[in-house]
């Protein structure tokens, strides 16, 4: 109950978390939640789920989208009502990097409010995975001119790198409003 009272003063932000299936979206969000609320084992998301947590003096409400091919068309229905996008890339899945790029291109085309995007180059622990810089090159992030973005290498299982990204995102969101 205490959290509800304190959240009254805090700013609410809505973000959407997308990325291909099995890239670690739900795991990342899970690790951002309070220790008590965390789930032990993560299963593939169907459709989407809504999670809420507090970080950096902001009350985040996250739409955790399913990355499966048949649900990817749901992503765009959330673009109107959000403050930021979190895009998770499976850095170990080289074959599908082009699919991720295609989905990102679609996102950039559909989302016209120029809200910030935070990229997580996840699965840095796996041998042979691409670094954040390499991911950025493959995904052609250098071509994004109309909005602010950042890419951070993460390991969602060990919870490394995620806080750096969220700090940047909070900074961007506070700057905006």
């Amino acid at each position, binding site marked *: 109950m205490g959290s509800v009272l304190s959240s009254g003063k805090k700013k609410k932000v809505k973000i959407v978390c997308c990325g*291909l*299936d*099995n890239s670690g979206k739900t795991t990342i969000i899970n690790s951002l939640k309070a220790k008590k609320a965390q789930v032990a084992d993560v299963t593939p998301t169907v459709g989407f789920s809504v999670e809420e947590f507090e970080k950096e003096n902001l009350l985040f409400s996250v739409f955790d989208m399913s990355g*499966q*091919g*048949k649900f*990817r*068309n749901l992503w765009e229905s959330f673009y109107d009502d959000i403050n930021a996008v979190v895009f998770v890339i499976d850095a170990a*899945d*080289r*074959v*599908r*990097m*082009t*699919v991720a*790029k*295609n*989905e990102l*291109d*679609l996102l950039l*085309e559909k989302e*016209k409010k120029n809200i910030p995007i935070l990229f997580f180059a996840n699965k840095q622990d796996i041998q042979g995975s691409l670094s954040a810089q390499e991911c950025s090159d493959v995904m052609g992030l250098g071509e994004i001119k109309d909005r602010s973005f950042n890419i951070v290498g993460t390991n969602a299982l060990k919870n490394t790198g995620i806080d750096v990204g969220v700090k940047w995102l909070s900074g961007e969101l506070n700057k905006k409003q």
Partner: protein
Amino acid sequence: MIANKNGTPTNKNHSLEETGSELREKIWLDAWYDPLANITASSSCMTFCDVNGDGDHKFVVASSSANPLINGGSTGLPINKMRVYKGTQVVNESVILEEPVAVCSYYSDLKMPRKSIIAVGCGSFVFLYRNLQPFFKFTIPPIVIDPDELAIWAKLGSGKYDEKTGYDELFKLRDLNKQLSIRSYELLSLTEREEIKNLINQRKNTPLNTQNILTCMTVLKKDKDEVDAIGCLVLGTESKAVMILDPSGSSVLKKFQLQNVPVFMVTHGAYDNDYRVIIACRNGSIYTLKGDDISGVVIELDSQPCGMLRIEKSIVVGTMNCVLHYYHTRGKKQYSVYLPSNIKNMELLDMKAQRNVKCVIAFLENNELRIYNGKTLIHTIATVDQVVGMCFGIYGTEPNVLALSYRNGGVEFKMVSRVAKLENTGKGGPPPEQEIPLKLPTRTKIYMEQTEREKEHATDMHRVFQKELCKLRLTTARAYVKILTDGQGPVSQSNHMTGGSIRLNATVSGLGPLFKIRMTITNTGQKAITRIPVVFIYNQQIYLMKQSIIEIPALIPQVQYKMGYDVLQIDETAGSDSIRILLCTPQSAIPVITAVVNMPLTDALVGSVPQTAMGQQR
């Protein structure tokens, strides 16, 4: 400013829409290309399957050693091998003893987790792999040999028959349309008595048996027509037989004897219910197996088949005369699509997830990878090399992946974009021009009379027209010939006098009274010409030139010669005249080329006029 403000956002929107359509136009996403994969596999030797039962589909490919462009293994000898890819990595590689014919994957039981079996057909065996380990070998039953033929060979072996009698007896058997063994056919193909004797002596003591070779293999679902249902292997053999095996691969459930050698097979329905196996044979006939019988409906193609697919209730057959034929499974022809080049490979694009579109991917000899939705060409891309095989399916967890095997040994994965436009957007049928009504004149009285007259005198009118046309052509031709022979034109025709053709271009510059004639002469022929006289003809009372005849020493082919000559107008009151330039040859009086230069009026007289001078320059 307001207009500007309004204008900018609309422009931006417009450009966004354009990029959107661009994304939709793009169908293939280039995921991964390994030019050094060192494998070549035909379409039938590739499959995507869930080997471990964890939902992660692997790419299984049986590579043939027959391609001279790819290297062997560490021994340097080319080997047949089966490779399993996960992502960009090879997770398993095993040697296959013979040239692979086909690879299929299916589920043989309902045990959890659902691990699919890989069936590799080569030679006269089908090897079944579970957990990537070979665990069962099915041997295709050998061809039964005619007892008469056996008897003849036995007599040849024991020496009762000499080669002449043996040959004649076998000849008789063949005339009776008996199916003989390959050894007998080989014997009958020989003509020299010595050769026949040698062959008999070499072979007569080895037992006569004929292995049955696999030609094609596919999977028929057992109890229900679903992706993860239990399947049965269907084998086509060189002995013109088709066999349906039980799911374990240990016994033959049904056997059909066809008239021709099957080369492509597609299945429809489930074995336990109502199934069909459609079989394209090497000679171009398509048979249908249904229940216990071979259906009476046989499709006769106009050429040999080079690929067959099934889209719902229709089958698509690519033939060697560059045509895609669409038939209903019951045998009724629907339509044909004529392609510009030979079909090398065909595969079904079965779009999964979100939407259900089925298209034909055809690879043509001119390195084009085309997608057809029914009759409509949806998309074309050029490939880096000749595609020898392709396979469409689920790779990893991503549906809609196309694996390509190239002739150079490379492997490529392409994925279909989620928003790719595969639907048949353009209206089929006649072109839109056909819908626009013709502008017919109104039926006035004069028009009616005119038509009547035209109807009555049609022949005469046509004849008169033809005559006039002939006359016109004759006049034109005469004028043309005259220009060529007179040397009046600016370009001379090749003739014996010059040995080449010459182009002459002359202009005049200056405001007067001193002008300059600039000539550009090009020899457009093949040979150099020497000692060419050039003559200027002008009114000597008006103009003065230092030399009215000059001689050009040589004209080398394809070089532009530029020359300038001064002309002085001595009588400034005489207005202007033209100067003719004749280019001749020493051998003939008729000039080769003539150019006429219209001289401008002298400026001092008219008062205005550099423009006039410029205007009249030629």
